């Protein structure tokens, strides 16, 4: 009996989701006004890249904490940098979505692009989406100064003491 309820609930939730997404999409389209668009930044500009370098750079917080001995101020700075980092990543995500949404404009009779190119473009899109979700998650959880790619430096401690990696005979021969 419980299976029947689960299936019925799934059917209702599915229909509600579809209707909500359809109606929301329509209201979003009708309320979208080009004048309200603040414009997405050009990420090829040095100004934006320099800003991001500054946001993700831990030196300012370290200077406050260690050299000036203001740990509370350093924490406050880290928190505000975290919010800035999240906003920066979201802006990058928004700019990417804008880029992806730009429709193809063509001359008549231009030949079709092969499907391998289309799959390559899709892979680049999916890769970016996965990376940005991961980056946002790491920044939200650990802050902007955390290593985004985990370090594997601890692996050297797993090796038995005294065991040194020797170059293979082939590598020695090639040298």
């Amino acid at each position, binding site marked *: 009996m419980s299976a029947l309820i689960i299936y019925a609930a799934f059917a209702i939730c599915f229909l509600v989701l*579809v209707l909500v997404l359809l109606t929301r*999409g329509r209201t979003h389209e009708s309320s979208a006004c080009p004048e309200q668009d603040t414009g997405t930044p050009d990420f090829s500009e040095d100004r934006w890249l320099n800003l991001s370098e500054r946001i993700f750079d831990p030196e300012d917080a370290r200077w406050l904490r260690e050299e000036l001995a203001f740990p509370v101020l350093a924490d406050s700075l880290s928190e505000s940098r975290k919010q800035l980092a999240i906003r920066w990543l979201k802006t990058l995500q928004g700019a990417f979505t804008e880029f992806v949404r730009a429709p193809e404009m063509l001359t008549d009779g231009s030949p079709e*692009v092969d499907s391998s190119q289309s799959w390559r473009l899709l892979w680049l899109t999916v890769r*970016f989406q996965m990376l940005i979700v991961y980056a946002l998650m790491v920044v939200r959880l650990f802050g902007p100064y955390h290593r985004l790619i985990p370090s594997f430096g601890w692996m050297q401690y797993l090796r038995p003491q005294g065991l040194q990696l020797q170059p293979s005979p082939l590598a020695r021969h090639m040298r």
Partner: protein
Amino acid sequence: MRVQGLALTLCVLIAEGTLLYRGLRGGFAKFYPLFYTYLIYDFTTTAGVFAIYWLWPSLHASAYWLCFVLSIVVEFAVLVEISDHIFQPYLAIRSLGRALAIAISGLLAVIYVFPAIFPPNQMRKALLDFALRTSLTKAVLLAVLFLVIRHFKIKLGRNSAGLFLGFSIYLAVNIANFPMEKRFGDHYAHVLWVASPAAYLVCVVVWTLALWKVMPLVVASSTGRTREEQSEQAALGLVRFNNTLSRFLHK
């Protein structure tokens, strides 16, 4: 109940006929070739099964299930066509609908749909189970497609939105109905006789309204660039975005 069910089936035939006439006469079929082929198949099989019901009633159940199982498999191809149509103008995600359809259908087919067919079971229950699980797979695929469309803020357009909405209504009713039929058997079969064609009738009416006029989503304007040049341009842009983000990951 049977009379109501047959009357509804007749209404489905009329609605499908109207949709087909409109599509073929207006030349809309070239935009959705698989969808219109599916409609022709469905129209002819529904009419055929209708005739079998009157001429050879003993063969009706077998004919109905054979046509139904084939049609639910073909519906996957139609969903792929509609999603292709939605993502077609966007170079970077042109294959996204197809990729999602292949990934979700393939995964759920292996872990959820095929196990329903293999165990030695009653034929009727196995068919109902198969129909239920394929409907659920299609519903999951549709829900994911809707969420992705929403994520990229893509304009769905009246045609594609109507096609998706029609399918969603039909699938939701099937998902609620098939387990009841499985559980209560012949007691519920009478309800299914009415509910199934009624849901399909609503679905076809939505399709007819949505496809009364085919409206292209994006008006292409001439920029003097070929598809290949645009594709290279898009690839360069995507690589630039990936590199911008990768810089911070490798810090």
